[in-house]
């Protein structure tokens, strides 16, 4: 990160809330659309099971491989068509989106919490604790987690618990690194020392003063990490690992649909488009957040 000389990284957002509450009118069109898409995705994630027209695994072999409306041979009952077993694509899409997003959220939250916590610990205790944690961080960063996940899934079998663990551990080291650096800087800030001189306990100083002031880079990292986590899960599910039938996720749908590209291309394209739109929106939104939080971080 290149900082504006003279401004400390910790004070990147004094009055962040003031800037954040800017009028919606000022948002560029791309960001608005992205927020719309993200909003829809979030809505689906929450309400999927409530708005299903069909059960996602309800089969209707007479209506197999029906195309989506308005193509030939489609019906409005199945607006997005049906798959190889006659299951409604729209319903499956809702559930798949819910699964993928929830998993990505879970993974991101776990990774962010673990990473931030370890970053604090490393910065607070220093010396060998810091060395140990930094070494683990370096090693984690040195290996592609995707490959490790593949290997672990091979060795340990494809269980949900293992998969969740792998997702949770994806990317934690980046939060740890950022947090550690920022906490080390923040601790030297006058106000942290002042509260210490007033008799504040370390925990109070961290929670009340340091953490809120380092939130913005962490949030930026979240917006970068979240789409990557989505891609992580969908890639693995696409390959047949990760989420497998009878459960479904966006990657899993895409993987299934791949076998029918000649006869029913929509089975692959529809979930793929959803993935793409979600990660795209998140990237655009994340970029915009970054420029608002700290213009000096701009590309």
């Amino acid at each position, binding site marked *: 990160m290149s900082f504006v000389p003279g401004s400390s990284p910790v*004070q990147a957002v*004094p*009055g*962040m809330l003031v800037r954040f509450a800017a009028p919606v009118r000022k948002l560029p069109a791309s960001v608005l659309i992205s927020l719309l898409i993200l909003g829809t995705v979030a809505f689906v994630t929450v309400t999927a099971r409530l708005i299903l027209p069909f059960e996602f695994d309800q089969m209707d072999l007479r209506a197999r491989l029906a195309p989506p409306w308005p193509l030939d041979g489609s019906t409005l009952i199945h607006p997005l068509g049906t798959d190889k077993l006659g299951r409604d694509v729209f319903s499956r899409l809702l559930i798949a989106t819910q699964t993928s997003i929830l998993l990505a959220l879970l993974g991101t939250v776990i990774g962010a919490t673990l990473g931030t916590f370890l970053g604090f610990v490393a910065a607070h205790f220093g010396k060998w604790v810091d060395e140990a944690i930094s070494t683990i961080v370096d090693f984690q960063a040195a290996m592609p987690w995707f490959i490790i996940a593949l290997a672990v899934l091979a060795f340990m079998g494809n269980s949900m618990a293992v998969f969740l663990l792998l997702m949770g551990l994806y990317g934690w080291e980046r939060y740890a690194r950022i947090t550690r650096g920022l906490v080390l800087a923040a601790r030297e*800030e*006058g*106000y942290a*020392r*002042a*509260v210490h*001189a*007033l*008799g*504040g*306990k370390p925990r*109070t100083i961290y929670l009340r*003063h340091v953490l*809120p*002031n380092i939130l913005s880079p962490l949030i930026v990292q979240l917006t970068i990490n979240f789409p990557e986590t989505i891609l992580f899960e969908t890639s693995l599910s696409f390959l047949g690992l990760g989420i497998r039938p009878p459960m479904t996720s966006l990657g899993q749908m895409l993987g299934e649909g791949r076998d029918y590209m000649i006869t029913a291309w929509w089975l692959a394209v529809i979930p793929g488009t959803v993935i793409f739109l979600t990660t795209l929106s998140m990237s655009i939104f994340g970029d915009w957040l970054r420029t608002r939080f700290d213009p000096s971080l701009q590309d």
Partner: protein
Amino acid sequence: MSLATLNADPVAVADPDADTIVRVRDAARAFVHRKAALLRKAGTFNAVDGVSLDLKKGETLAVVGESGCGKSTLGRLISGLMRPTAGSVFFRETDFSSLSADCWRESRQKVQIIFQDAAGSLDPRLPVEDQVREPLDLHALGTETERRAKVRAMLEAVKLGRHLWKAVPSELSGGQQQRVVIARAIILEPELLICDEPVSALDVSIQAQIIKLLIEMQERLGLTQLFISHDLAVVRQIADRIAVMYLGRIVECGPAEEVFSAPRHPYTRALLAAVPVPDPAARRKRQLLSGDPPSPHAPPSGCRFHTRCPKAQPHCSETPPVAQTFGDHEVSCHFPEDAA
């Protein structure tokens, strides 16, 4: 040279029979100025090198000197923020160098310190009202209503406009920020307040206001103050006693009036001579310091001031001077000046 024209408001004079609340004995504090390498130990120097002084309840002791003389370090030692590497610092019966973390935190209710950079010691995000309240929360004093009342009282006492109470520090001027810092420091009603160059970063007109505020607070709360500054004009307004530091040692210490009117150490004389006096007709004996200030990493032998002293004799570079007492007035010089 007559410095009889003191513009300051009358200052509460310390009762000579009152208890001594701070006792510093031969305190020293070493710092590393050269990191240890493979075959070399770390190079250290003593920022404070054998300082002894007492603080009596209710008085204001000013510590003056050039930058680098160790007065800030001394302030931190007395406040307990730093531990001496030698000697002792006692606050009442408590030895600051051997406190547990919890006891130390508790002691913060009795001893507080404010610094030069007011904005830097305030959280940029929080309204100043919350920050003044924080010490009460940290030490869990009083009920919610009581705390709010105290915060209100404090903010009024430091004369911060009501409309600014919910502002964040960046919306306040330097003087206002320092008021907030003062309010925060004394809301716990400490016994001892250490002020480390609290007005050096402020405009002169604001300086006077803040000094006045500090004096007022001291009267109201019966505070004992340690006032650190390089600016003798400011010190003149607030000090009961003055200690002059040079390269980690106290060279002169005595009642403010005496030190100003009849300084006995050549260094003090030179410092005072440099203070502008608003009387173009006043002719003063200029006592110029010769040479550059020596580095604290390698202090001169014997009397540390001998390299710049206009009266230096060969004896001065051989033996460190012993403190000589003239009533309340102590001087560390082989050849102290006579009372002018």
